[in-house]
């Protein structure tokens, strides 16, 4: 009914292999894009844009990065926070050393620096697998945070180890970092970066690289036999994943909070992002967004819900209740659909396409 596909014929390979082969999906996507680009900046308050939408998008980007590595290439990583820190500190060092350089270029450079760090810590993945690899990436997490705390050069010898974002603009006058920047500009900038990178990720996983990753994930020996080089494939996954995480970290530090210390990227952050992809769906681009939405938006909603419903609870009670409900919901969703929210959506879509004729 909703997905009435009658009359949609695919007459070329291009239409058959489109990202959204069903017309209704394309429309839905366009509507969502329009909402994201027009409606949200127009009606969203500063609070909504700065403290809900921007962290949601930044988390989604970090989840994308981790999903490329863990969901597609099958390499479990607990170093996401550390790689985000590399991105944040690289951006800070670059932009304070070269104040004239465009912030977009700096983000890309910072992403590349993070990719190099990812490569370095990706080398052990050739020898160790599964939980053991997770422990090796845990070392990356602790080492990187320790490094950014230990050497004052990274934070330009400031007394407290906090890096804060100087005001930087794109196209000359649109400030995207610093407190004077318009929240709408910040939001649109983050949105564009995330969408471009999400599209790139979608392209990657549909192409040769993604197929190679999935082959390695599903059975590395078989993949090697059919001619996929494990070294190159795994390292590519580590580098690209870190690139994404680096940019996410840079945006976290520069656009979202505008002042961070290394402890903002502690192990908790890595776990949070890992939970996002587990709940959202391993090996799914959509899942990154769903997972980020679940982990970022739900706690805020739960915290505000009692007051909106007219109850005045003490804050500590609300916070504790929130943790409990949130935990219960995670368990609930993992029981009804262990493959994540993205799978839930996929099942729903299958049913909607057949509706009203269920099997």
């Amino acid at each position: 009914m909703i997905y009435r596909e009658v009359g949609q014929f695919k007459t070329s390979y291009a239409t058959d292999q489109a990202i959204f082969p069903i017309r209704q999906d394309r429309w839905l996507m366009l509507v969502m894009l329009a909402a994201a680009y027009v409606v949200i900046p127009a009606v969203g308050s500063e609070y909504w844009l700065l403290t809900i939408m921007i962290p949601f998008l930044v988390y989604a980007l970090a989840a994308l990065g981790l999903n490329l590595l863990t969901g597609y290439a099958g390499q479990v990583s607990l170093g996401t926070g550390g790689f985000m820190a590399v991105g944040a500190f690289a951006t800070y060092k670059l932009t304070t050393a070269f104040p004239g350089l465009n912030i977009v270029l700096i983000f890309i450079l910072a992403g590349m620096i993070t990719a190099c760090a990812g490569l370095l810590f990706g080398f052990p993945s050739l020898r160790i697998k599964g939980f053991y690899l997770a422990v090796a990436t845990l070392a990356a997490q602790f080492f990187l945070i320790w490094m950014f705390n230990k050497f004052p050069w990274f934070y330009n010898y400031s007394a407290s180890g906090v890096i804060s974002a100087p005001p930087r603009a794109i196209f000359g006058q649109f400030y995207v970092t610093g407190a004077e920047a318009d929240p709408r500009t910040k939001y649109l900038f983050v949105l564009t970066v995330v969408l471009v990178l999400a599209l790139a990720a979608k392209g990657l996983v549909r192409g040769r690289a993604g197929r190679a990753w999935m082959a390695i994930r599903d059975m590395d020996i078989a993949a090697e036999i059919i001619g996929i080089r494990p070294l190159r494939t795994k390292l590519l996954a580590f580098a690209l994943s870190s690139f994404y995480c680096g940019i996410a970290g840079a945006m976290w530090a520069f656009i979202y909070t505008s002042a961070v210390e290394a402890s903002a990227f502690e192990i908790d952050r890595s776990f949070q992002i890992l939970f996002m992809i587990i709940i959202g769906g391993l090996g799914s681009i959509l899942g990154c967004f769903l997972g980020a939405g679940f982990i970022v938006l739900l706690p805020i909603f739960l915290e505000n819900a009692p007051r909106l419903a007219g109850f005045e609870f003490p804050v500590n009670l609300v916070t504790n209740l929130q943790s409990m409900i949130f935990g219960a919901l995670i368990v609930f969703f993992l029981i009804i659909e262990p493959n994540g929210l993205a799978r839930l959506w996929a099942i729903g879509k299958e049913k909607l396409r057949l509706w009203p004729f269920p099997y």
Partner: protein
Amino acid sequence: MRLVKALLAATAVAIPVFGLLGGTALAQSEQFIPRLVYRTGPYAPNGIPFADGYADYLDMVDAREGGVGGIKITYEECETGYNNDKGVECYERLKNKGPTGASLVDPLSTGITYALIERATADKIPVVSMGYGRADASDGAVFPYVFTLPATYWAQADAMIKYVGDQMGSPEKLKGKKIGLVYIDIAYGKEPIATLEKLSQKYGYTFLKYPVSAPGIEQSATWLQVRQQRPDWLFMWGWGVMNSTAIKGAASVGYPMDHFIGVWWSGSEPDVVPAGDAANGYKSGTFHGAGQDYGAVKDILKFVYDKNSGHTTREKVGEVLYNRGIINAIYDLEAIRTAQGKFGKKPLKGEEVQWGYEHLDITPQRITELGADGLMVPVQLSCANHEGNGKVRIQQWDGKHWRFVSDWIQPDRAMLTDMYKESALAYAKEKGITPRDCAKDM
């Protein structure tokens, strides 16, 4: 299918409810104060008494005299968990509440202060960083909206060195001694390092650093190092569960407690009581008195607790951090009162309260009127000086109470002002800020 329907229904309910966020109206003659608190998490033992003291004082003032200058003070708490991004979320959520928006914000966290400095400056809301970071924000020319009264960590570090010098007879005796710093490895803990390093050059002591990673429960390596290196004096910048853990750690390596001095955030009942008798003799800095024996505290008991109201139990009133919450509330309300003197008795905007803070002058006479003799020290702020030259005292835990063991110590203001200025100018340069000319600004 049923599940999909249920989910759709849930979303349909959730969206309009969610959309109402941030729209509660308050009466027109109220002054709103957002309260960033932490009553959960590893820092809760210290966050709770502070939040209770602050809230009880506001309730008392509203009950006793109907608010400040006839304007009722309202507040709303938001739980940050001492977490920087939650702090930003709370700030953004609360900053536009009340008829005039937030009058000011007390982050009660160095990290949150750092995250709010620029936002609040852009929103024209004063950030009151009472006795925490960032220290160089005392330079009001570069940081017009940040107030660090009554003293910063740099001032505290200097006062501690002065105290240690006095204890040994004269500052010259510091030469060749070893002074260690046990600190939590986040922005807050790192603040005093630069000052202690600078002073080590001046006095010739060796400065040893013992970082503890947050939240500070794992310290065994730290105390092993302390046992090996045996610093003559040991300072601590800790918070929450780290403090009591450190005191137990010091006791376990047999470190003499009376040579172990905490910052003012490491010297309250929740820090020493869990350590038991091991904590006896432990010292800490402070900038106010503890106990119930002050007019202002008695008024809280009379106007709040006698009416079976209040945020905590009667016995907890007067704890160190509880009283510090009162001090913070007094500063905030006095700044609002000062601003009312210029702008009239009406709900004030953050910008106007900022004026009030810059012209805040709490004289000994005013302290008597407030019923806070011995509870707090006089401060006087100005456009250039956002710290107000507060003094620091050392207190000692005797197993039951915190007792003063030194007189009020005035830190080396000339040296500190230069340090603030140097650091603030570096910040201004990095950010492209032109400092205000405080000679012109009146």
